[in-house]
């Protein structure tokens, strides 16, 4: 629907530190509007395509760096990325503009859907369609987490797999509150990582 939806064949030569260009605020806003509307089930792949491949606003390494920062910060990853990226090029205004571009259109759409669901959610056939989609959406998330977990569980086990398994047990099976599980496991996991860095 948007130009960013074009296949990856539109990529020019990968940007290098010398060829990256800086976006203006309106460009920043439009880029994140496009990302917000093309991305679904996670907008980050689209953000990468837009920023590195199409607009050449960052090198792939810079993108990965900003992306990994956005991933481990709390909150929605792509939203954190918009803030990290926007602030880098336009300070607070850049962060606000990227945030508004990313959240604005989806919020309008989701509000319309929320109103429709409130009115028609009880209609039997709609409920059936949604329950089908809900089952598929759960499956999609399983696939995502299996892909994420593969590198962690594939190599020789260190602290990583036990921490992941304990987090899963605590939250999914024991149904303990997230803050408790987090406040216990995060320091332990970080401490192990700390000693591993030293080697």
């Amino acid at each position, binding site marked *: 629907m948007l130009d960013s939806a074009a296949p990856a064949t539109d990529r020019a030569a990968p940007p290098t530190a010398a060829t990256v260009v800086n976006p203006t605020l309106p460009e920043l806003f439009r880029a994140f509007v496009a990302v*917000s*509307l093309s991305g679904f089930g996670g907008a980050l792949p689209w953000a990468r395509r837009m920023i590195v491949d199409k607009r050449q606003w960052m090198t792939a390494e810079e993108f990965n760096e900003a992306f990994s920062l956005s*991933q481990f910060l709390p909150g929605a990853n792509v939203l954190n990325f918009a803030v990290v990226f926007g602030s880098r090029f336009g300070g607070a205004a850049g962060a606000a503009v990227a945030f508004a571009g990313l959240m604005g259109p989806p919020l309008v759409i989701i509000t319309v859907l929320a109103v429709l669901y409130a009115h028609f959610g009880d209609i039997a056939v709609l409920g059936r369609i949604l329950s089908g*989609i809900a*089952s598929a959406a759960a499956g*999609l998330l399983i696939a995502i987490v299996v892909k994420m977990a593969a590198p962690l569980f594939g190599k020789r086990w260190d602290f990583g797999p036990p921490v992941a398994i304990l*987090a899963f047990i605590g*939250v999914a099976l024991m149904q303990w509150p997230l803050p408790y599980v987090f406040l216990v*496991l995060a320091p332990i*996991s970080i401490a192990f990582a700390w000693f591993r860095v030293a080697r």
Partner: protein
Amino acid sequence: MKHDPLLALAGYFAMLSLFAVGGANAAIPEMHRLAVDVMHWMNDRQFADNFAIAQASPGPNVIIVTLIGYHVAGLAGAVVATTAMCVPTCVVAFIVARTWDRFKGARWRIAIQAGLVPLSIGLIGASAFVLARAADHNVYAGLVTAATAAVAYATRINPLFMFAIAGVLGVSGWL
């Protein structure tokens, strides 16, 4: 706090957002626990429906909080829940982004980044489990989940197609 739904939305979502390492998906079980088990704002089916709507519409997954907020307290609830979920973490991201580059290569920075990866994977795995349990009430629904997981893992087919097929299967009334 339990008497004013807007205050409850603001308080809960602001707090859980700060522990949502791994993105909105990592916080799904906590949202489910609060909305279904603790606050009784909605039932399992409604929660699964809302997640399905959020997944099938464009934009960041975090907009499920907009749907929950709307369900609880209308437009005001949608605004409050979304703001509470997004603004504190964006402020954190803004502050960290300004200082982070200075500590590139610092041992504590590497340790924090590496230490949080397995935690977020475990949390997102828990989300998948909680969602499957909320959405799948019989063996056919479980098969749809399993089939979608297999296709999404093995191919690059746009998940919207799988959602469409699952929606049609849902009309059959088996799920």
